[in-house]
């Protein structure tokens, strides 16, 4: 045995990865239910996705407030009673608001699901948003915001999106404490009526599914006045900021700066998207990436640095994100540009590309392990208007995209002049 020589490996690029297909069911009112039946534990995850994201609101923070307060009272149940009902069965009911969609997610042991579905149905049809609950929410959210505004990374994330998309765009807007003061119970009730009660819903379920789960869903949700008409996403104009370089002092005593470098990038339907995912991995997409190797593992400027394509539906952005020591922020930015330059000027070696391909395939294999992971991937595809062909095309890209193509892409996209540059101390 020679410890200097690595054992033989099977190249992950040779794996024949499959995405387990979903089964599709349609409830009586037309709601589509995408299901993945897998796994050994007696658990179920159900996610109701409504077209109720912040792109539909006419006033800042109305969509997120509606989503947040869904658990805070119906005409027959108080907030406490709702919470207690789910917790009594050891279940978790969460809600999240995004740009296009807002979702409600239930995690439960299989044996309790039937106690919970009727209450979820009650919540999406009969929430009343009591004044008292709204007032408490406003007070506490404003305090929370004030705490967040002390954090350089929080400020940086808001500003970089504003630079990229403009403050009027759903992807670029953010909330002030005044926005909370401005929302009223009527705003929330109206939004709820339009985008939940009479809204458009798609359901994703995964786990070791009970044989009658679809029947149960149909019983609780199939007769609701949902999905009567399609709801189109409003088109918003992207109005990026003219000035590209920004330096902000948020805390004069801060010991680190939050650095963001970002450029606009098309969405997943663009033919370069999957190829750029590979290039991004080389650049800053994992621990062995060039940014991490140089800026963390060689220079020690930061605990971590990452590059990624933003997970957005209409348009994306290519982002580099890190928190670095205050005195090395500018040096960090220079190194990021040096790494862009190397990718533009030199082809990636076969050896490095081989490693990145294998890493991406291996991590894809790991990310498809288990029912919740599989349904999450399907959900992402379905909400982005993609199908399984996208999965298989992406695999093919990881396996075959060559160094020359990646260098061309670096020359097309990794141009410093195209990047917004921000440091918040």
């Amino acid at each position: 045995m020679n410890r200097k020589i690595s054992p033989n490996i099977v190249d992950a690029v040779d794996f024949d990865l499959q995405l387990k297909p979903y089964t599709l069911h349609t409830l009586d009112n037309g709601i589509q239910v995408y299901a993945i039946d897998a796994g050994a534990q007696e658990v179920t995850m159900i996610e109701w996705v409504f077209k109720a994201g912040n792109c539909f609101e006419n006033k800042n923070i109305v969509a997120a407030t509606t989503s947040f307060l869904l658990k805070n009272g119906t005409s027959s149940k108080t907030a406490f009673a709702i919470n207690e009902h789910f917790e009594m069965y050891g279940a978790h009911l969460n809600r999240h608001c995004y740009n296009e969609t807002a979702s409600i997610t239930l995690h439960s042991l299989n044996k309790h699901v039937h106690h919970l579905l009727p209450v979820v149905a009650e919540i999406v049809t009969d929430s009343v948003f009591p004044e008292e609950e709204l007032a408490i929410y406003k007070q506490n959210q404003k305090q929370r915001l004030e705490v967040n505004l002390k954090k350089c990374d929080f400020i940086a994330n808001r500003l970089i999106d504003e630079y990229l998309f403009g403050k009027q765009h759903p992807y670029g807007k953010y909330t002030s404490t005044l926005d909370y003061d401005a929302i009223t119970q009527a705003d929330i009730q109206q939004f709820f009526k339009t985008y939940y009660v009479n809204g458009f819903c798609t359901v994703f379920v995964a786990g070791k599914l009970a044989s009658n789960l679809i029947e149960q869903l149909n019983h609780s949700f199939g007769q609701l006045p949902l999905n009567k008409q399609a709801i189109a996403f409003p088109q918003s104009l992207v109005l990026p900021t003219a000035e590209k370089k920004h330096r902000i002092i948020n805390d004069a005593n801060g010991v680190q700066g939050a650095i963001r470098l970002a450029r606009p990038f098309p969405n997943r339907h663009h033919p370069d998207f999957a190829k750029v995912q590979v290039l991004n991995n080389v650049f800053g997409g994992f621990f062995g990436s060039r940014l991490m190797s140089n800026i963390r593992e060689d220079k020690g400027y930061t605990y971590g640095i990452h590059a990624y394509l933003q997970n957005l539906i209409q348009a994306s952005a290519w982002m580099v994100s890190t928190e670095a020591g205050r005195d090395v922020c500018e040096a960090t930015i220079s190194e990021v540009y040096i790494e862009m330059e190397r990718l533009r000027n030199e082809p990636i070696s076969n050896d490095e590309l081989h490693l990145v391909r294998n890493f991406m395939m291996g991590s894809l294999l790991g990310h498809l392990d288990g029912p919740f992971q599989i349904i999450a991937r399907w959900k992402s595809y379905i909400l982005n208007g993609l199908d399984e062909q996208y999965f298989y095309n992406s695999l093919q890209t990881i396996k075959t995209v060559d160094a020359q193509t990646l260098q061309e892409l670096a020359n097309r996209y990794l141009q410093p002049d195209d990047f917004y540059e921000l440091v918040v101390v």
Partner: protein
Amino acid sequence: MLHFNRFVLNNGLRVLVHEDPSTPMAVINVMYDVGARDENPEQTGFAHLFEHLMFGGSVNIPDYDEPLQRAGGDNNAYTTNDLTNYYCSIPAQNIETAFWLESDRMLGLAFSKKSLEVQRKVVCEEFKEHYINKPYGDVWSKMRQLAYTTHPYKWMTIGKELSHIEKAQIQDVKNFFFKHYTPINAILVVAGNVTTPQVQQLAEKWFGPIPMGEKYVRNLPTEPEQKSPRLLEVKANVPVDAFVKTWHVASRLEKGYYITDLITEILGGGGSSRLYQSLVKEQQLFSNIDCYHFGSVDNGLIAIDGKLVKGVRMADADAAVQKEIEKIQQTLISNTELQKVKNKTESSIAFEDMSVMNRANSLAFYELLGDADLMNTELDKYHTITAEDIQAYAQQIFNPNNGNTLHYYSNNE
């Protein structure tokens, strides 16, 4: 019921195998029986800094990450006050690569000066990012120093101060390695799409030849019983006042641990918990409040932690928390409430066990506690807890003399 096989190599390395053919992946988890509690008080943060150095190359392999990534694997590690854990997940076909890498860094590190120099800086940035450059970032550093006078839980895993990390020398690194990173002080768990004979053969091949090392005998100073309440008042550049209070509780294997865990659910485990309902919703004294514990191996702390609504006086907030404490001490909790927190516990165990990685990690942890099979009796232990147990234990731990209070004031008046 989680099935596993267990064997011990001649050098004392304990090996556990959990077979799960439903996944294409394999997980290799190596847990070392050393954490921040084993540090010299003048060199705190060292166990965690050392964890970073485990990625700086080993005696025969210049780079840990590269070959693992090339084999489609991914990895990470964490350090707590109690232990240090390294785990990687890799396509099962390539599991031998993980054996090769993990065994080589147990055999010996490269002890590169450059790696030490860089990782000192990286850890200092980690320290700043999480504990200095954040509002309320120093709360737990202050609370640990208040609550523990003697036991090494008095400092955080990241370390007491930046200077301890900045001063670390290569000789310290070597000493630490040879003292703690040996087969006799480690537990190897292999889980996923593997078989026990296969793991047995690979473990013998790669880990078998490593010298046993000396068993580290832990002899930590015990925390003396607290005799009087402690209070610390702090002013800082934060937007709102915060209240944090802790009480000493049982160690991980005592019955008191399970009761503590249920008490945290009763008081602070969600939208129907007592503190949230009473103090955030009804009285509106806090904008958020939580109750939790750390799952420490040695005697731990239960904590109540919240931010005050602006304009509320600290004394009123403190008194309102105390009132809830008295309620749980004076009135037996109902069967419904007891059932609720037990159901929540059952459910969180089921969801946690969905991931092979979590299962491997739990097996290693319970083995570290003394017996991996404890994992299979956890739920039963919760089931035996009665309402009377909870009341009696609440009376014991929430004794004012056992309490440590931190009033953390905003100076933006």
